């Protein structure tokens, strides 16, 4: 709990790190592949002035750009430099279904990578993710997108359909629950430290101390003249720090089966006469989430929704160790256990601070009312999170908390909302109650993965270095055009 303020080099840091641009309700994600290295670099160079950097409170149209490992390679980053990136980033989400990453993330069954719309094995790799944000109902938004398409034509091409994002009213997500209430504050983000303990910047940005009091190992490049021009040298002086002020960005398109979620809850709510009880179904769904639809946490208001608490993020689980208010397996409790892990509150807070992510995702697809029948439309969340250690942060939350049926002493409760519901190992949800628990069994999978990739969100200097025409090496002239080749090159 240090009070000395960290100085973030905010002008170097892409704006998405500080905010998800809530005032810009329109958005689009373009999934691009490099066609020609030289023109792609030139395009990136021309884009630099429009990329949004810094901590902004007021903003108009915004733009951010991220690159995958095959993308960095396609732009000319040499193999030795790519090897300084962690293995999970280099492997990305492009491995085959039988590989270990889909297993640990729960990308199985209909969510297996081979079935994805984009990003999986056998699909062309996404090299660049271009994120455009604009004010709601701005008539010039589509013209702006068209202008960008014209600009990158010939240099890059869209390798998959773009994703139009929306902002649902009352900051809800598609199941109908207010989302994004719990957000970590980064140390150094506000001008002065505030009451809500900020998380060390190094958890989300390279170049700063993390929760272990150390600088996370940052990816580096050879200290060529071009590198020296843009980047700082490492302490040893033989390499240049490429990662500083950058971070990793996990992107996963999560398709939500809203109709099925609510029909399931309605089914579970049925009384002995067989009649659906909608308020009971909402109660059950809230037990699954850990908050009421308004956002009020169950630990504050266990029995009914109380919108007075809808923005509350100050709560903890000290009065609810057995989960009578908020079930142990509920989504928000699994995603962020706060002070509730064994063996003690203090140790739990230390451990959970070391496993936070910054969520910057957006919804897509038209909304569907609660209890309405399936309309055949696709909808969901493009889940985006930022962290410097994908294994310890994002993958850990996914594997050891959300999809872990043995979380916190449980037996077979995976996350009821987003869990993969492996038959036999999960698919149940326990609602602690006195004197006897209630239990939902045979839970279906409501969220399927339809695409994903691990990206790097570079700093201004790193983007400057990448777009330098002179940093293309003659020997690395191959362009990774197929996923297979790309993966083999990068992970060698």
């Amino acid at each position: 709990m240090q009070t000395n303020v960290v100085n973030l080099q905010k002008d170097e840091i892409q704006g998405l790190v500080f905010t998800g641009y809530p005032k810009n309700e329109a958005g689009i994600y373009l999934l691009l592949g490099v066609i020609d290295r030289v023109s792609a670099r030139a395009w990136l160079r021309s884009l630099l002035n429009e990329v949004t950097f810094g901590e902004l409170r007021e903003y108009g149209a915004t733009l951010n750009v991220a690159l995958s490992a095959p993308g960095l390679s396609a732009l000319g980053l040499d193999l030795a430099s790519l090897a300084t990136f962690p293995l999970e980033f280099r492997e990305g989400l492009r491995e085959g279904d039988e590989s270990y990453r889909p297993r640990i993330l729960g990308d199985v069954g209909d969510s297996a990578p081979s079935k994805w719309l984009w990003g999986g094995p056998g699909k062309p790799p996404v090299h660049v993710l271009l994120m455009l944000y604009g004010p709601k109902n701005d008539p010039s938004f589509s013209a702006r997108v068209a202008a960008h398409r014209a600009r990158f034509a010939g240099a890059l091409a869209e390798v998959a359909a773009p994703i139009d994002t929306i902002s649902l009213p009352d900051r809800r997500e598609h199941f109908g629950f207010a989302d994004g209430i719990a957000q970590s504050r980064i140390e150094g983000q506000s001008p002065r430290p505030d009451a809500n303990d900020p998380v060390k910047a190094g958890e989300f940005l390279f170049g700063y101390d993390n929760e272990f009091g150390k600088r996370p190992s940052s990816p580096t490049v050879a200290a060529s003249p071009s590198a020296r021009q843009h980047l700082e040298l490492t302490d040893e002086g033989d390499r240049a720090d490429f990662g500083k002020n950058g971070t990793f960005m996990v992107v996963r398109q999560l398709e939500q089966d809203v109709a099925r979620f609510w029909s399931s809850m309605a089914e579970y709510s049925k009384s002995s006469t067989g009649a659906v009880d909608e308020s009971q179904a909402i109660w059950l769904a809230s037990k699954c989430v850990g908050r009421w639809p308004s956002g009020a946490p169950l630990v504050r208001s266990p029995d009914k929704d109380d919108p007075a608490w809808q923005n509350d993020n100050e709560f903890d689980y000290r009065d609810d160790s057995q989960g009578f208010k908020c079930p142990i397996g509920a989504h928000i409790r699994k995603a962020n256990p706060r002070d509730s892990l064994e063996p003690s509150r203090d140790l739990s807070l230390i451990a959970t601070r070391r496993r936070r992510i910054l969520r910057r995702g957006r919804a897509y697809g038209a909304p569907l009312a609660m209890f309405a029948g399936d309309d055949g439309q696709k909808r969901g969340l493009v889940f985006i999170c930022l962290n410097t250690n994908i294994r310890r942060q994002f993958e850990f939350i996914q594997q050891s908390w959300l999809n872990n049926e043995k979380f916190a002493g449980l037996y077979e409760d995976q996350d009821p909302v987003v869990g993969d519901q492996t038959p036999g190992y999960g698919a149940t949800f326990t609602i602690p109650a006195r004197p006897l628990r209630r239990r939902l069994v045979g839970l279906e999978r409501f969220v399927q993965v339809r695409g994903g990739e691990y990206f790097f969100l570079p700093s201004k200097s790193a983007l400057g270095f990448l777009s330098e025409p002179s940093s293309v090496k003659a020997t690395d002239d191959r362009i990774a055009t197929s996923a297979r080749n790309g993966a083999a090159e990068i992970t060698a």
Partner: protein
Amino acid sequence: MGNSVQPLAEKAKRTGSGERPAERGPTSAVSAKSGRVLALDPTLAGNALTIVRTVLPARKAELVDLLTRMGTNIDTTTEMVFDALESVHFMRWVVIEGATPEAPAQLAFESNYDGTLTQHLADLYEHGARAMHAIYRCCAGYPFAAVPELAQDQLDGAQSFLIAGKIEYEAFYVGRRGKTARRIKIESRLRDGIERYLDGIGSDPLRHFANDPELVYAAIVDQLKEKQLADIQALSEPEPAAPRQSAAALVKHVLPIVPLVLPLLPLLPGLLAILRFKERTDVPESYDVVPPEQARLLAEREDFQVQNQLTHLVAVKPGPFRLLTARVVLYAITTLARFIYNQGDLGGLSTIHYARWVLIDGGKRLLFFSNYDGSWERYLGDFVDQAHKGLTSVWSNTQGFPRTRWLLKDGATDEENFKAWTRAHQIPTQLWYSAYKHLTVPNIGRNGHICAGLVEKPATREALERWLELL
């Protein structure tokens, strides 16, 4: 959860007559003829056995193939019927490369078992004589390498060969004392039976019983007596007594080491100076030390169920100082594990079922075996968060460990380097078996409490309600 467990109950009833379940196929000469009930000494649970034998270089590849094939087909392999084993909690075979390129490989066997050593070995040969023979034929000095199958009168000789390779542990930790594997499985079945019964009633079973906890309890007991009578009856069997943790026992445990340590006490300042000098001049390995191929190889064999295993091998730093320090620290850890951390909690960690350290090659290399819950990332992460001092005090005496001060400080707190170092020295385990792979240490403890409430009905209304909250 129940697949590998249910048939065991059936087989346990039938092995009395020496019959083998038909679908398993022909068995070796030894086990078919033995036909005896394997009665384990009920007072002994959760003991450690480590056997290390040298591998014949010409047969190393064959051995690795055999173990890997069996290990990736644990449920169906016929050379050893793992699910029929009665004495085993966990076991593994791992082929260890020689310390130098010229040195032959070694085969390590690690098991955690119930009953006496003789009973445990008999259990292994009862259900896996073909495997035991095929494996140890690849080792130097095995007296029966020439025969295709072991005969009944060769059994003792084969077991003597194994016992000759037995080595004692330097440190041993048990997550759940006093529970045999059989009991753990029975208690798990009973808990599953209760939950399935209640689930069958509905998502809100209390309403079915007019909100009366007494009725719930009575109905559960009736149901279990009807569907799982053998398991209920087994609950009355005697359990191993908890090992004596009196002060007298502690003194008895520590006494042998006193004559070794006492003469060193006056030298302590000098010893500490040597320690600090060594710590300043030791060279830690750098972060990017894990080859991607090795990282993938290890990850491919993990996370198929909640439990995982870890086999870790690292050279001890040269010199008598480091070796002695390591041995003293390991002895201290064993003492702590036996007398203080003996309630399923190791300094806050409740994820370890069984773990041990052994020294091989005359003290030159330190081997660590662990059977734990959850992912590798979570396991190591917990150590960094809560129990780094213990690991640092042991492993700072081995090659390449992150920089340490005063034996306990820094070291494993350096999260990135510590995890990279650990992964770099982790070796693939060809065969690993767990008798209850879907149970965590907390699950086992809770099942024990649930079954205690079945053996003896909770006395008060309050106690009954608390018992119901366990479900």
